[in-house]
């Protein structure tokens, strides 16, 4: 029993320690990010990686999510004879919740893992040390461009996820179930609130920042060769996704 308490206590202390280190990394990223010069080349590279290269998979995900949503919403609404509200449900749930969260989860999986793996490999092969010996701050050189690229590209990806998901819902609602085109569009628009859309995008900015901070942290603290990098990558993805979901709950409480 005492042993168990001790173990739990140790876990909590380790967890709090990690949390503190991540917070200080985030702070350093922000401090370093504000300093000149800004590494535009890396920033552009990361924007391509996070934004452009992730766009196809985000589109694929969101069109299917939209279709499933449309299908289920139609079946439920049909029971009470309100099938014209299918588009409203699809539009509202995508912009408020599913678009932002699913995009953040996909980016966590794709970018979180590659960030942790890249930085982790650099760490275990002494490339991070090499950077420092060449008077280059690894946080500024590696984390800052990724951080800003994530902050900018996540809302951008979410906009695509929203609109493509709505199109998925439209395909099901209008082409499969035969809701009238004008009615579908009108009801979708009626239930969209500009504030909801903006809140959804604000959420993704925060998701992006947290996700990239966690992934960078896991990379910077990787140790023990290839296996260590593997562990760092796994825990970066798991922790990023958990953080996205938990912070989504908190942000929803705050924003709505």
């Amino acid at each position, binding site marked *: 029993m005492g042993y168990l308490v001790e173990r739990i206590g140790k876990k909590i202390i380790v967890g709090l320690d990690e949390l503190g280190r991540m917070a200080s990394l985030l702070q350093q990223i922000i401090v370093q990010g504000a300093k000149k010069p800004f590494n535009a080349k890396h920033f552009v590279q990361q924007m391509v990686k996070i934004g452009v290269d992730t766009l196809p998979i985000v589109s694929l995900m969101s069109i299917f999510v939209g279709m499933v949503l449309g299908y289920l919403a139609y079946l439920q609404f049909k029971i009470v004879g309100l099938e014209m509200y299918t588009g409203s449900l699809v539009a509202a749930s995508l912009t408020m919740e599913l678009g932002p969260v699913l995009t953040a989860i996909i980016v966590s999986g794709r970018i979180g893992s590659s960030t942790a793996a890249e930085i982790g490999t650099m760490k275990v092969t002494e490339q991070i040390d090499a950077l420092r010996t060449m008077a280059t701050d690894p946080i500024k050189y590696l984390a800052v461009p990724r951080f800003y690229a994530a902050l900018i590209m996540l809302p951008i990806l979410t*906009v*695509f996820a929203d609109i493509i998901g709505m199109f998925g819902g439209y395909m099901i609602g209008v082409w499969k179930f035969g809701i009238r085109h004008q009615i579908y569009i009108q009801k979708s628009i*009626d239930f*969209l609130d500009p504030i909801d859309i903006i809140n959804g995008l604000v959420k993704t900015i925060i998701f992006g920042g947290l996700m990239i901070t966690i992934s960078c942290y896991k990379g910077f603290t990787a140790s023990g060769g290839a296996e260590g990098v593997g562990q760092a990558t796994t825990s970066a993805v798991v922790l990023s996704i958990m953080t996205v979901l938990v912070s989504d709950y908190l942000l929803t409480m705050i924003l709505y």
Partner: protein
Amino acid sequence: MQQELKIGIVVAVAIIIAGIMITLAGGRSFYRQGYQLRVHFDYVSGLDIGAPVRLAGMEIGEVRDLQLIGNQIEATIWVESSAKIHSDAKVTINSLGIVGEKYIEITLGKKKLLKNNDSIIGENPVNVEEVLVRGERVVKMLDYQVKFLERVVFNGQTTWEEVAGIIYNLSEITKDTNSLIKNNKQDISLSIHNFNKLSTTLEKTVAENREELRNVTGELKKATKNMNMAILNTDKGINKCLAEFSTAASSFSNVCKKIDEGNGSLGRIIKDKKIADDLSETANNLKLLSEDLKQHPWKIIKPKEEKQPGKRK
């Protein structure tokens, strides 16, 4: 393709989409120009903030605020600046379909235009429950009267006093009905008025001579037609009353048949062929109407489809 170009395309497309979404979103008139009006109600029937405001059936704004001021409720509504609301417009609270979403309906007007922050008096919505209760009472009384008439005809023990009493009661009923639906469409009150007039005439006529009875039944016939039209335009709350009304009508029809066959003393009194025919036709009209309504209740909800209900057979 150059990296910067790719990013540029993605970002630009996203900004355009986001811009369109945010601008289109809501119909909530986030950026549209508009003005506010204050509407005072005694009773708002569960109206919510955010409920739509319609001008002659077209959505033009929403309810922004509801506040209790003194013993009245002040609803602040926002309407688009393109929507012109006149001081003689009627402002009512209606509900939409089965779901019962409440909205504010404003009619077009002619007198001076209302400006920002002007106030206007709203009409109180019909309390559906009250309509139902009173309607039911009316039908019960009618039913009772018809049964009484039947008894009188069967037994042949009619006294003029009794008939006069019946007619007096009928008149009371119509008064009641009249007050019940005085807030409703005009044709119903017209029909009630006719019915009222009819009863009064009937009372007089029966007491004096039978010659005028002919005119009376003619009028009764006209009244049913009016009633027909009126009921079709009435609120759905009366729906339930109609079912009972139908029973009443068939009883009435029974009576009239007996009168036609010449049974009972009253039958003999009014054995004049013309009067009997008229009465019978009236009863049939009533019966047809109520049966028709029973089968097709939507006609009450959608009165527009039945432009001339009086012509139907």
